[in-house]
């Protein structure tokens, strides 16, 4: 192994660092982390950084394609973007921006403390960065669930009144369970048998009897369950009539193709969210290794590379926030 490092071309590369050829074997003896195909820690570090930057370049192109889609959609439907942007919560988006910036700072500090060999501060900063990632995803979860509840989603579902849609969902879920036969099954002898459990206990063969009822009003066959108690237990407690339109559908100013905004919104923030999850995994691995004491002033490359990844996740969000939340 060490013969390789003593080759003339290797010495030519390393001469900038003022090494003698025979010094390289000493480098390997000195630094356990130095892989045999590298001459010096600096060369190994530079190679790792170059590889990481190449990966980050592909990440930029990856997100770049979606930014291109965004630009095309926005230039074609400017009215959709200025209208639909108001459905996004600026406060939540702004707080998330700050969370990511602060977690970027703690990540940069983690690199700093790794370089200084301060193990406790390094682990603390990594945990804080992890906390930022969790906080970001929790806020994102509240944003997503609220929008999905209002049917502010991509595709045809955008045009389904939310409450009507929910009724369909519940009905379809229930109809998959073994359904009661309205005609053939006698009233339950046990009055305490209520709810889904009693329905699920019915023999599956009875399910055929329910099918004609499905063609009537939605969920009729399901709601006319054998006992009144079961029906009450399953009836959705929704005071809003099924025909009540949601906010965006009731708005006469709703521009055509508004669902496109939410398609690109979920695509871009979703891909970004996946990157946050991946970031949490690699930061978790760093925490494990940092706690074990792997890193110090001589060797902190993984901390540096994960830091670069985490910063680019922050960098993407820096563009997503104004482009989606802050359209005048």
């Amino acid at each position: 192994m060490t013969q390789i490092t003593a080759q003339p071309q290797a010495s030519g590369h390393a001469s900038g660092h003022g090494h003698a050829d025979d010094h390289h074997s000493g480098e390997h003896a000195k630094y356990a982390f130095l892989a045999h195909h590298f001459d010096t820690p600096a060369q190994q570090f530079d190679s790792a950084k170059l590889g990481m930057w190449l990966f980050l370049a592909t990440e930029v192109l990856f997100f770049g394609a979606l930014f291109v889609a965004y630009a095309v959609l926005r230039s074609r439907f400017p009215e959709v973007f200025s209208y639909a942007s108001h459905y996004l919560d600026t406060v939540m988006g702004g707080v998330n921006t700050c969370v990511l910036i602060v977690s970027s700072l703690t990540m940069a500090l983690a690199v700093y403390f790794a370089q200084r060999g301060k193990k406790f501060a390094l682990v603390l900063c990594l945990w804080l960065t992890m906390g930022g990632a969790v906080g970001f995803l929790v806020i994102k979860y509240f944003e997503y669930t609220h929008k999905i509840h209002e049917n502010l989603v991509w595709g045809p579902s955008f045009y389904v009144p939310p409450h009507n849609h929910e009724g369909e969902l519940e009905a379809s879920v229930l109809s998959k369970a073994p359904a009661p036969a309205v005609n053939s099954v006698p009233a339950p002898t046990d009055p305490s048998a209520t709810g889904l459990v009693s329905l699920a206990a019915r023999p599956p063969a009875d399910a055929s009897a329910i099918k004609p009822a499905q063609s009537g009003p939605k969920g009729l066959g399901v709601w006319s369950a054998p006992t009144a108690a079961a029906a009450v237990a399953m009836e959705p407690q929704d005071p809003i009539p099924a025909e009540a339109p949601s906010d965006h559908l009731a708005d006469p100013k709703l521009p055509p193709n508004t669902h496109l905004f939410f398609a690109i919104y979920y695509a871009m923030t979703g891909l970004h969210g996946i990157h946050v999850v991946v970031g949490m995994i690699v930061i978790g691995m760093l925490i494990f290794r940092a706690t074990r004491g792997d890193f110090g002033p001589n060797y902190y490359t993984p901390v540096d590379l994960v830091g670069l990844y985490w910063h680019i996740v922050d960098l993407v969000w820096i563009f997503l926030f104004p482009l989606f939340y802050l359209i005048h």
Partner: protein
Amino acid sequence: MAHSHTSAHGNAHAHAGDHPLVGHLVPVSTLVFTACTLLVLTIITVVVRYIDIGEFNVWVAIGIAVVKAALVATFFMHLRWDRPFNVLLFAGCTLFVILMMAFCVLDTGQYRATQYTGNPPVAQQTLDANAPGAPIAQRKEEINP
């Protein structure tokens, strides 16, 4: 700034205390200052949203985002002290994304509308000539896609 050297490798053998074996040590004050600037710029970009400057709103927002991105890349990602080739990689791929975006927007901007509110012009001419007062076709997308 507290650092006394700008080369990423001038300190390859400076083992004494403050400096790592490889790479560059960016002082905490620089990092904190960068983060504070980023937070201030975030507040500014939110405030600017509520000021109507017409078409320039989007360009101001993008401009602030570019400044923030540059700050993150320069200081958090150590690009200021990194190998120039890494800077070239990052700037290069960003440039090509902008190029792709520009061509796509220019291209799609040239398309003629293919969905009409109302009938296509030729059909409407025929209708006007042969059946004046005929109902005008409405775009389906306005109700349900």
